[in-house]
Structure formats: C-alpha cells, structure tokens
C-alpha cells in the first residue's frame, strides 16, 4: 500500500466524513485514494478537489465546526496558499477532529522549495506529527483525530515524499461508520472573534499547547532500552527509519540510546528536561529544518543542523545519515561514491500540445519575455520559452511587473505569459483582474489541456467532474476571462501551428495598444485517462524525406522525444513507438523535410 493510500485508509477508518484537497506532488494520491475507498463504501461523505488549497482548507474547517471529523491535504507550498486560514483557525479551534495533512518534499524532487511544514505548525501554534513510514502515517491519523478533539485544535500530519511514495505491506483494518450529530453551535465571540476576543483565544491556545506538550500518546519513544552512554540520538520522520537500520548495521543499537520524536512541535517538556539532564552530547537527525533541535535549550550539548553536524539543505539520504551517526559515535567513516551521472532530464511528452504552443510563442515574439508558472509546462524551459517560474499564479503578476518596469522605455519588449488551466483557476484570476485594471500590455496564453496533468490528471473546474467521477457543474475558462474584463479572448488548437502563430501575432499587436489579450491554447492532454471527449484530431503519419540534412533544428527548438538525430546518417528519424501523430513537426522543419506520408508540405497537410 502506498503511503498516501495508507493515510487515506487511516482517514476512512477513523470516521473522517469530509476530505478536501488541491493536487500537488507528493500529496495528490491521498484524496484520490479516499475517493476510491468512498466509492466502495458509499457512505454519505464529502470528497472534493477544490479550486485551491485555501478553499479546500476552509471547506474542511467549516465541516469540523459542525462536529464532523474532517481533513484537508496538500503539498507544502500549498500550505502557503492556505496559511491565512490556518493561522486564524488555530486561534478559533475546532469542534470535530480536523487534520491538516501537509506533505513536504525534501530533495526537492518535485517542488519549488524544501520548506518544512512543521515550522508552519509552530508559527500557527498547532501540534504536528511526523511519521517515519506509511504504516506509522496511518496510525498517526488516528492519533491526530484524538488529539484534535481532546484539545479542540487543528492537528497537522506532516509526511514527506519518502513516506507518501513509499509502499509497505499493510493490513487494512475496519472501516466503521459512526454517524455523528451535525450541529453548528452559534458562538460569534468565538467563530467571528474580534481582536479583543482574539487576545483571549491566543491565551487559551498557549494553555492548550502547554498541555499538549505533556500528552502521553504523542510522547517521544525510547527505541533501544538496553543501550547506555553519555551520548544519545534523537530521530524523527523518515530519518528515523534510516537511522534504525543503520544503528543495527553499525552495531550501535546496543550502545547509543536512541529516541524517536513523534510530535516535533510542541516538544514534550519532560523529554527536554530528561535529555538535557542525562546526556552530555545529543545528535538530532530530522528533516528539513532543525525544529526539534531549536526546542532543546542547552545549545552546547546539541549537534544537528545549527552547528553543521547535519546538512541544512537537501534530503537526508540513508548514506548521509550513516555518515553523521558514524562520526557522532566516533567511528571511521567511509565515503561512498554516489550518483555522478545526472541522468535524463524530463521533457514534455511526444505530441504534447504545450510543445506546439511554446514553439508558436517563440515564433510570434522571438525577443519577448516569457513569464510562466507551475505545471508540466514548466518544462517549456527546455524549449527556451519559459523565463520565470515563481509559484502558482505568478506568471500573470510577474508579466505585469515586467510591463510596468519597461513601459517607459522606447521599445518595450513583448511579454507573453503562459499558465495552465488548473493554475489559472487556482491563483491566476485575481492577477488577471489586476492586469485589466492596470492596462497591462501582455499576452496571456492559457494552456488549456482540460486537466491537472502534472499531478496525475485530476479534474479542473472546467471539466465538471468530481473526485469520485461524479458529474458536477463546470466553469468555462473563456467566460471567466471575459468576466475579468478582458476584451480580446480567442481559442485555438495549437496543433494548427500556423493559425496559432498568426493568432498570437494578432494578440500581441492588440495588447501593445489596448492592454491584456488572452489566447486559450486548447487541446486535451494525451495521457488523461479520465478524458471522455474524443479528440477531433486524426493521427498524421509523418516521414522524413531524403532532403533532411540533419541540421537538428527540430531537435534543438522543438525537442520532441520522437524526433531522433541519427548522427551517422546525418538525418532525423522518427521513433514510431513514441510518435503520436500530432503532425506539428511538419510545420516546424525549416527545410520542409518532414512530410505527411503522401502529401507535399505543411500547408497541404493543414
């Protein structure tokens, strides 16, 4: 069972009746698995993908205000989006158990930052649990609900990539259905507290935290009771999993006492006193920031991130943990050569409509500035059509920033921003409204592939399908764009490359005088298994003619994995397994050497 499936099962087994999320690696499969379990059980639960993490958080939070057990899941940078709600919800507290699952990505493997959600829990002043494995993550869901209800406080569960995307043999328990009374107790002094009341709520929150710091069920565990030394090891999260194995391998298990922290914040007060009172040297191994470390007061006894014993950036791989523990135990360390070969870089799929759109953008605005956003299309980097990637929704506001910076220059550059359909819904709308009001001259290309592709093809609001495949309402992107006040909004399939390029040129011309122009690049994602609509596009069989001189323009500027340069023959060949027959490369080749079988050139194909 995948870690994320184990978490979903934990939610199910513990009576969670409302689960919301916005997809993001490594958290995406939590809600998908919950929806799949819900389909089997068909109990009256609410499961949904929300438009963004803030909305997801607030829906689940209000559910808990009615006494239900609810949960929201997201990736760590998603918690940034939901942080406004989190900080306030910590003060107001909860009624039914409310679990905030924020999955961190040390590495980072698939994220903009390596930020530690446990710091967010600390800032919000809520407890956080740190699982070491799928199995423990599932158990901690139960603990989180109990803790949340015992203290009427949101509780964070913080798995990392190696927990979410690890797979372990886990026996499913019983999914029991205990219907709860749903009741919203009006209490404006609490639920709509004014600043004066917030002061009292803050006092109450501090009291809760003091009590939680001695809650028995989440207290640190002594792992090896037999060991006795003046040194001790504190571990947490997946680093605990690595360390347990390594301590046994190095024959240190019976020598150096080892403690596992389950609740890194608030750290149990008795534990802190015991550690400082017992040991001369303490090594703390945790990911990614030294949260446990900074709560251990006596600095000169502690080794960890703050004194440089443990690296402050990057994932704690088991080989790194081995080196740290060996040094701490006074053993010789052997350097092991790790990866040196960077491997293959990711690229857009063969036939991906985004590739065609990016190629067209470079043609239409060769000297432009290209702000972009978060999604598969970030890979437009490889094509030189993505200049900036900051965070969800930033493409539009950064385009505005570039416009305002350059607008008084003699010849300001054209600005063509790209954003995915799901990202546009998530955080692009307010920025577009702002750009309309400020008359920002730029073209926004909405890469509309009818899905949230990068994270595994979750539905967008335009699709009208729910997390369990049920039929829902939909919101059309063009209506939304027009509603934002944009007067120039056209739709084109980027597979029609020449038409798409000339549309972009029109849009650029329009934007120079009148402000924002929007081009919706619409072609469904090729790997979307949920897709109901059959694409209108008929596969085009392409061949490379003898005129190809191997200039590799197509490889360098179009980078389709199906186009392979045969250096010996100085010609391009087409990989028949990868090629999906989009036919766009026919119009890409500057020498017209790629042709549709039986046709003459680009124009006659289209």
């Amino acid at each position, binding site marked *: 069972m995948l870690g994320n499936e184990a978490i979903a099962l934990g939610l199910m087994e513990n009576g969670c009746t409302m689960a919301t999320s916005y997809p993001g690696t490594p958290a995406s499969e939590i809600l998908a698995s919950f929806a799949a379990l819900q389909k089997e059980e068909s109990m009256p639960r609410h499961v949904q993908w929300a438009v963004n993490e803030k909305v997801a958080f607030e829906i689940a939070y209000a559910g808990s205000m009615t006494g239900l057990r609810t949960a929201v899941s997201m990736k760590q940078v998603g918690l940034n989006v939901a942080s406004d709600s989190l900080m306030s919800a910590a003060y107001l507290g909860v009624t039914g158990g409310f679990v905030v699952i924020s999955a961190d990505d040390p590495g980072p493997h698939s994220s903009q930052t390596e930020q530690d959600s446990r710091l967010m829990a600390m800032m919000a002043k809520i407890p956080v649990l740190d699982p070491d494995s799928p199995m423990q993550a599932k158990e901690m869901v139960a603990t989180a609900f109990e803790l949340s209800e015992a203290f009427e406080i949101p509780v964070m569960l913080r798995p990392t990539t190696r927990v979410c995307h690890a*797979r372990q043999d886990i026996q499913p328990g019983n999914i029991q259905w205990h219907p709860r009374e749903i009741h919203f107790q009006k209490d404006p002094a609490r639920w709509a507290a004014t600043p004066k009341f917030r002061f009292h709520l803050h006092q109450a929150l501090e009291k809760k935290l003091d009590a939680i710091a001695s809650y028995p069920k989440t207290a640190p565990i002594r792992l090896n009771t037999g060991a006795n030394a003046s040194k001790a090891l504190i571990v947490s999260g997946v680093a605990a999993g690595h360390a347990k194995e390594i301590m046994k391998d190095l024959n240190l298990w019976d020598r150096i006492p080892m403690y596992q922290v389950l609740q890194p914040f608030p750290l149990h007060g008795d534990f802190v006193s015991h550690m400082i009172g017992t040991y001369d040297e303490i090594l703390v191994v945790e990911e990614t920031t030294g949260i446990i470390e900074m709560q251990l007061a006596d600095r000169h006894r502690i080794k960890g991130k703050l004194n440089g014993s443990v690296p402050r950036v990057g994932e704690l791989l088991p080989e790194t943990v081995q080196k740290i523990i060996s040094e701490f135990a006074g053993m010789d360390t052997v350097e092991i050569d790790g990866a*040196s070969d960077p491997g*293959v870089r990711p690229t857009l799929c063969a036939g991906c409509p985004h590739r065609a759109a990016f190629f067209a953008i470079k043609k239409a605005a060769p000297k432009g500035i290209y702000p972009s956003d978060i999604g598969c299309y970030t890979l437009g980097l490889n094509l030189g059509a993505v200049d900036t990637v900051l965070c969800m929704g930033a493409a539009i506001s950064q385009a505005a920033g570039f416009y305002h910076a350059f607008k008084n220059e003699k010849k300001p550059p054209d600005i063509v921003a790209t954003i995915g359909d799901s990202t546009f819904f998530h955080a692009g709308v307010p920025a577009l409204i702002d750009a309309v009001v400020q008359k920002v001259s730029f073209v926004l290309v909405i890469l509309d592939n009818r899905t949230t592709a*990068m994270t595994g093809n979750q539905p967008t609001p335009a699709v009208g399908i729910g997390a369990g495949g049920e039929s829902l309402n939909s919101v059309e992107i063009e209506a939304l764009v027009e509603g934002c006040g944009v007067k120039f909004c056209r739709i084109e399939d980027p597979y029609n490359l020449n038409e798409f390029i000339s549309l972009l040129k029109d849009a650029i011309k329009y934007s120079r005088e009148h402000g924002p122009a929007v081009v919706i690049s619409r072609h469904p994602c090729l790997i979307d298994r949920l897709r109901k609509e059959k694409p209108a596009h008929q596969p085009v069989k392409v061949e490379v003619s003898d005129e190809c001189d191997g200039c590799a323009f197509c490889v360098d500027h179009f980078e389709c994995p199906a186009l392979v340069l045969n250096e010996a023959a100085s010609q391009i060949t087409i990989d028949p397994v990868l090629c999906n027959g989009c036919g766009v490369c026919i119009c890409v080749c500057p020498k017209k050497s790629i042709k549709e079988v039986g046709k003459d050139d680009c124009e006659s194909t289209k």
Partner: protein
Amino acid sequence: MSRSMKQQIVISGVGGQGVLFVTRLLAEAAIIKGFSVFTSETHGMAQRGGTVLSHLKVGNFSSPLIRPAHADGLLALKAGGLSQHGFYLKPDAWAAVNRREDVVQGSKSPVFAVDADGLAQRIQQPKSINLILLGFTVGVVSTAVENPLFCSLEDLKTVLEKRLAGKKKMLGDAITALETGFNGFGTI
C-alpha cells in the same frame, strides 16, 4: 526461503517505461510469498520522460531507501541505468540490463543483457519492455546467480492474474511479454 529473507533491488528507467509497474508487481509477489516489503517510488515531474528510480526492499527493513553498495540487484530498463545507478550495487551483486550487446567488461558483478526493445518489437508489444526485462531477470537470476530472486515466474504470473482479472487481452499480452523475456535469456 526463510523469515530471514533480505533482498534489496534497484529498478531504473525513464518516465513512461513502466518502472512503477514492475516495482509494484515485485512488491505484490513479495507479499504473496509472505515477506514484508518496503518500496520507494519516483512520482511527479520526473515521470515526464526523466530518470525514474525505484527502491525495493524485501524482508524486515525500516527505511524505504537503499544505501549505495547495499543492493543485491539492479534492473535497468535503459542501458545507461547501469552506469548511472550501478553505485547502489554490492560488489558481487547482479544487474539485468536492456541493451543489445551482451559483452560487459571490467565489472566484477555479473551483468546480464537482453535486447528487450528488439523482443518487444518482435512480439508487437512495443510498450512491454518492462515485463520482458522482468521475465528475463527472473530467468537469469534464478539460474545463473547463487542467491536466487525472492520470487519465481509463477509468482509473478499469479500477481498479474490478480491485477488484470477480467481484462483477458491485457493479461494474455502481459504473460506473453513476461515469458518472452524469461525464454529470451536462453537465447543469448
């Protein structure tokens, strides 16, 4: 095989080749054999054609990751996987690699090669190189290596039958691919 079974295997390839599928089949085979299993997978951005790596640990482990020089075996769905991820292997570990040439020099550990791309074309299942390499691995490792793989061809077939129950065509194709690889080992 006993309770003390401990095997660590690295599976490498690029996004879209089915590294996750192979990992899952092996993990399920471990479960039907009654072993504990712990795997770690690559999801997200790298799945778009980038390098993908799975760790599979059969037996009693607490960490999902394999340390360098601790793996018993490597399945490389791309020829480059051996040089790229070979550092995970123990000195005497085996590697099964998808590539045309069989000759490997300067390596202490046994390296077995199979042209899975070619075999996949031959059985007209271009996307089945993952199963062909898996079948090949089971065949070659059980015969040519002292410490056999924790599962057999039959175990993998059982897992496939369970996973693809009700999808007769897909199951038939998958078993053909698996057997093609298994038998492919005898031909080189």
